[in-house]
């Protein structure tokens, strides 16, 4: 985690910061979702508590805390309490492996009669060499919290909802995996940081021995993988159990799916996990297809040079650079999250057989075709 005490503790604080950021984004998203629903359905949404109803979130949190803690008779206590806690882990582990900004440097300084060497921090929980594989591995653990909740509640609706949810998640994981293979093929790396680096500058690629450069477009993945980007978005809707794929909690059939028996803060933890998956999915979409934290026409090095001209070389400029890119990344994420919300209030829910058919008979073949096409064009254009 680091060479000396300061680095270790700063890295630990960074991890905690990213986790708490995810937790804090959830009430904001809930507010956005409710206001958005109001906007889409031509009504007001929460607007009483505080300006624009923003402090509604605080009131909700307090309400969740004050709720009675109860456990149904039939529930298995360990699993019933373990599931909501475990629901937080996959999303937060995955989120911390996504780069939120470029490196920033703290130059060497002396303090307390000790010399503290120069540090280099990256705006990311931890840098994983095989980033995508790590994220896929962390995300594949999400099924367990659902199964634990469904089984631990001792309720047949919960169990049915859990089995539906896990079936759905694993079905769409295939299409997701195949689109990610195509992404990996384009970039030739597993590391998300390298992917972001590769998307810098204007769109330019080697096509049958000629270098093609298009100046008015950024070098983003979406121009290489348009079908893949769409498939990825659709599959991530299903992975995070959002409408139109929220069959696990189809009220008409299953009450509330695997969290039928949950209430109060336990429910809230599930909520955080679910929204966390949404955030991870949008961050991944941005990183794969929309240039990550980079600005479209200004690379992070150029921006750093501009800052260094204004503020001189040192901590200020590199920190400002990192924070600017952090803000850019968050802005991009919020656009994608708005798509999630907009789709939720626009499209109706599928039927379960339609859902599975879409996953296996439409998305999987399309993802396969996309991969084959990508590989063929790639190899052909590089050899001839």
């Amino acid at each position, binding site marked *: 985690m680091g060479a000396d005490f300061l680095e270790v503790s700063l890295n630990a604080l960074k991890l905690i910061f990213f986790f708490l950021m995810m937790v804090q984004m959830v009430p904001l998203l809930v507010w956005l979702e409710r206001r958005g629903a109001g906007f889409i359905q031509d009504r007001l949404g929460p607007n009483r508590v505080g300006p624009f109803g923003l402090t509604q979130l605080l009131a909700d949190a307090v309400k969740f805390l004050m709720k009675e*803690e109860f456990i149904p008779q039939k529930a298995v206590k360990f699993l019933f309490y373990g599931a909501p806690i475990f629901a937080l882990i996959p999303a937060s582990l995955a989120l911390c492996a996504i780069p939120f900004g470029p490196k920033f440097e703290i130059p060497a300084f002396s303090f307390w009669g000790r010399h503290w060497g120069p540090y280099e921090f990256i705006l990311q929980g931890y840098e*994983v060499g095989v980033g995508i594989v790590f994220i896929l591995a962390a995300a594949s653990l999400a099924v367990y919290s659902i199964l634990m909740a469904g089984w631990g509640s001792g309720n047949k609706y919960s169990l049915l909802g859990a089995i539906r949810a896990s079936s759905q998640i694993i079905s769409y994981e295939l299409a997701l995996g195949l689109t990610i293979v195509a992404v990996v093929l384009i970039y030739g790396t597993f590391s998300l940081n390298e992917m972001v680096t590769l998307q810098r500058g204007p769109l330019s690629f080697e096509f049958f021995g000629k270098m093609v450069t298009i100046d008015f477009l950024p070098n983003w993945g979406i121009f290489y993988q348009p079908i893949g980007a769409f498939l990825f978005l659709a599959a991530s809707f299903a992975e995070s159990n959002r409408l139109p794929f929220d069959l696990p909690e189809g009220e008409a059939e299953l009450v509330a799916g695997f969290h039928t028996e949950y209430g109060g803060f336990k429910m809230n933890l599930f909520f955080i996990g679910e929204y966390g998956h949404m955030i991870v999915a949008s961050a991944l979409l941005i990183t794969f297809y929309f240039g990550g934290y980079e600005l479209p026409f200004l690379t992070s090095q150029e921006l750093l040079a501009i800052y260094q001209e204004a503020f001189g070389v040192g901590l200020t400029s590199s920190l400002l650079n990192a924070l600017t890119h952090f803000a850019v990344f968050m802005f991009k994420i919020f656009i994608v999250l708005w798509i999630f919300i907009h789709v939720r209030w626009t499209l109706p829910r599928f039927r379960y057989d339609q859902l599975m*058919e879409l996953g296996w008979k439409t998305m999987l073949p399309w993802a*396969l075709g996309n*991969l084959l096409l990508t590989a063929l064009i790639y190899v052909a254009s590089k050899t001839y």
Partner: protein
Amino acid sequence: MPLPSVFFLAGFVTLFGFLLLFVASKIGEVVRDRVKSETYECGLPVEEKVDTKISIKFYLTAILFIIFDIEIIFLYPWAVSLKEFLAQGLGWYSLIGVGIFLLIFIFGLWWEIKSKALDWE
């Protein structure tokens, strides 16, 4: 892989969730009630069934998922090193090799669709 960081984060998250649940359980007032702690059945009396029948389809889906998942995972090392294969002049060779593998994959998928193993009625 930065294992210490990963485990630190996992530990912190677990602790965070546990503490929140603990605090919530201390703050909220508790009124015990026999009916309240019954299994939720939309207000109807709880009906005990010997076994809840779950369609065999779910389990078939999981089996097929395992098989296709493995096949997809085999593609990752190839995809990541396609550039190196191209640099060595092995581009078409590796593409054809993987293409045969993918053809077997597609044949399997086609068979599953044709044999109605993936149909939900």
